[in-house]
């Protein structure tokens, strides 16, 4: 080999090595394309005048122009060359300049490139032939070329001799690179074609690496997403929080403007929104059927994702819906073969100018992966809730058992005690009364007798409470007006209320549903609570007596001013024999609690700034009424819904 030829080869290898170095230093496709074009056109490198890159879009089966570089005119070319010669910029510098230049992508030739796209089949264009043939094509004279050069390429690019080389990676053609010397009119040598081919091959590898990198990045973000969901499950204990987390992550990771997580109840065939994020909230709020429940139902029924890229062209969506959302996706949540629900996402944010705001297949796949994780999360959370619920019920049962046991013992004992005490008490109080009647009103002994009478009355009241306990039997339930029961109870403590100069605020709701209850027992409950309230009420203080409908129950609220009950004592209030220590047996509230429990209700106690103690007797509305209401609920069958979406796939 001649000395000069050898030098050229060495120079070429050195150049290629440098280009490869620069190219593999980046993983971003745009940057890689810029480096390739710089290498092809830089004077210190291959030195072509103009170059353009085409890449294959496998999904669309197209060869699309992606980027181009080169002066627009002879004058511009001359100016650039003289500049380059005086600065004698190295290849690396040129590359750095070209890739750091933000406007570089908006090269006139890039715009030209982007206007070009050819279907991937024969007899369309030379670029496609180059890709399909996987070999370079050197066109020395376009007019005499035997193959096909498309009209578009002729109009936009072809002026003179040019070269098309395939961009290869691992035996596949990823695209093509075309270059010419339209301004310098320098003839292209065979060696230059070889060098261009080598470069295109390296470019192919770099592009392939970039794609792998992009996929890795996606996997990485999937992994971190999955990790986040996983962490979410561990750190959140409530189902609601898990659902909200999934809705948020689905929207954020896909880059959607909103999302809704739907839950499916298989036994009842009901789809309900479990959580929403962003614009998803308004979809739920406005009750959009096509965008909401129908879409979710379709994904659930088919156990496969639904992607609607353009809602405006889809008659299944109402005009109003089309005005709100342009692109939607739905994926089912399936865990261990169970249909759990679906995630719907609405409208993608375009991440850059090159990104479309339409959902693509790969995003659908990603959402499906996320949905798998989410399904597990939902199932776990549900299980957790179930375990918690069971545990709670167990604890309640234990507490109830403890109380019931105590109650039974109390009942037995109180019956005995009552008899033994009541007899002497009757005579003590009775004789005191007798003596008191014989004394003159001015006699100081009258006061002392009054004390005996009052105290024996109090003891008798305590015995009454104990007897109530002994008598706890199953309530005799009838439909009753709770307001009536409240009024009568208040009447029965009116004497004590007067003594305390209590100001009673009555707020009884009208039109309350009638409740299934034992009015005698309920009166006992209210009297006991009222007596407790009066006991702690300061003289002249205020009391509130309120009834209202809350959800599917009725609340009777009895509040009194005065010192609030310390938190640790609140739990103890309903335990038999627990007392404030002032007086009483500590049975009154225990009896009340027991009776309310038998009515399927509960008693809650709390304090606030205004009221020292607030008792709330929560009673369920009778079962019959509940059932009647459910019957009226509109139920949409899954089968009816499926048809409208089934036609699509």
């Amino acid at each position: 080999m001649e000395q000069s030829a050898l030098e050229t080869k060495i120079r070429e290898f050195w150049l290629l090595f440098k280009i490869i170095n620069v190219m593999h230093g980046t993983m971003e496709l745009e940057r890689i394309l810029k480096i390739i074009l710089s290498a092809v056109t830089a004077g210190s490198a291959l030195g072509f005048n103009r170059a353009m890159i085409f890449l294959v879009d496998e999904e669309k089966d197209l060869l699309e122009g992606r980027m181009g570089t080169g002066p627009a005119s002879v004058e511009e070319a001359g100016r650039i060359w003289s500049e380059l010669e005086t600065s004698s910029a190295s290849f690396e510098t040129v590359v750095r300049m070209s890739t750091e230049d933000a406007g570089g992508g908006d090269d006139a030739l890039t715009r030209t490139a982007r206007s070009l796209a050819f279907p991937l089949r024969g007899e369309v264009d030379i670029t496609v032939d180059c890709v399909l043939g996987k070999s370079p094509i050197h066109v020395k004279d376009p007019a005499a070329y035997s193959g096909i050069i498309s009209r578009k390429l002729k109009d936009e690019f072809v002026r003179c001799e040019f070269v098309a080389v395939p961009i290869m990676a691992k035996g596949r053609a990823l695209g093509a690179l075309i270059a010419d010397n339209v301004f310098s009119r320098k003839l292209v040598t065979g060696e230059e074609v070889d060098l261009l081919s080598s470069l295109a091959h390296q470019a192919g590898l770099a592009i392939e690496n970039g794609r792998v990198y992009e996929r890795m990045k996606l996997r990485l973000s999937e992994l971190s997403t999955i990790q986040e969901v996983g962490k979410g499950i561990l750190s959140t204990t409530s189902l609601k929080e898990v659902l909200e987390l999934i809705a948020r992550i689905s929207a954020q990771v896909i880059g959607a403007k909103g999302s809704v997580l739907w839950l499916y109840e298989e036994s009842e065939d009901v789809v309900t929104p479990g959580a929403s994020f962003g614009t998803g909230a308004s979809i739920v709020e406005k009750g959009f059927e096509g965008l909401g429940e129908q879409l979710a139902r379709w994904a659930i029924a088919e156990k496969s994702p639904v992607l609607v890229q353009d809602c405006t062209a889809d008659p299944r969506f109402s005009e109003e819906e089309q005005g709100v959302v342009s692109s939607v996706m739905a994926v089912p949540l399936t865990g261990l073969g169970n249909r759990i629900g679906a995630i719907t996402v609405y409208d993608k944010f375009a991440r850059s100018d090159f990104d479309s705001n339409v959902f693509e297949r790969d995003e659908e796949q990603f959402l499906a992966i996320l949905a798998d994780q989410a399904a597990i999360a939902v199932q776990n959370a549900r299980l957790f809730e179930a375990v918690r619920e069971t545990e709670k019920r167990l604890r309640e049962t234990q507490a109830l058992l403890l109380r019931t046991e105590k109650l039974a013992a109390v009942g037995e004992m109180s019956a005995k005690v009552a008899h033994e005490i009541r007899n002497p008490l009757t005579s003590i109080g009775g004789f005191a009364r007798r003596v008191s009647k014989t004394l003159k009103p001015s006699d100081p002994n009258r006061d002392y007798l009054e004390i005996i009478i009052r105290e024996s009355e109090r003891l008798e009241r305590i015995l009454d409470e104990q007897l109530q306990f002994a008598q706890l039997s199953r309530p005799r339930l009838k439909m009753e007006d709770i307001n009536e029961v409240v009024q009568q109870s208040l009447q029965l403590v009116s004497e004590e209320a007067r003594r305390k100069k209590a100001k009673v605020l009555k707020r009884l709701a009208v039109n309350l549903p009638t409740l299934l209850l034992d009015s005698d027992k309920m009166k006992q409950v209210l009297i006991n609570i009222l007596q407790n309230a009066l006991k702690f009420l300061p003289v002249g203080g205020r009391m509130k007596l309120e009834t209202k409908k809350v959800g599917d129950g009725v609340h009777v609220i009895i509040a009194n001013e005065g010192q609030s009950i310390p938190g640790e004592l609140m739990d103890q209030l309903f335990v038999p024999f627990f007392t404030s220590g002032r007086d009483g047996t500590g049975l009154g509230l225990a009896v009340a609690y027991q009776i309310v429990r038998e009515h399927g209700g509960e008693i809650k106690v709390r304090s606030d700034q205004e009221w020292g103690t607030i008792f709330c007797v929560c009673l369920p509305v009778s079962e019959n009424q509940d059932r009647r209401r459910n019957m009226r609920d509109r139920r949409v069958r899954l089968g009816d819904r499926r048809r409208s979406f089934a036609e699509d796939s």
Partner: protein
Amino acid sequence: MKALLVVDDDQSCRKLYESEFADEGYTVTGAASGSEALELLERSTFDLVILDVKMPGMDGLETLCEIMKTKRNLPVVINSAYSTFKTNFTSWSAEAYVVKSSNLAELKRTVRSVLEERATAR
């Protein structure tokens, strides 16, 4: 003057009832047990019986059964420390049921109204 029979094993209670009802204008006789009451009922005539339930030996409800066998029309007012016997069907045959209290107002009221009812029914 109406004659009352007070049956109670508690001596103090008996004494209280005797004096209180005497003040009200009744002739009052006390009995400390069910059997003593039945003996007295055989020997003398009473207009009404005030009957305790829990008593050693024959209790009030048994006594009530015996009374009902021989004197179906004699009104009996049960006066017990327990209200539990209210639901015992034997006590249904009693005219009234008053829970014991040092305040005898209710018992007095009941006795008066039962006797008045009987007077008008006759």
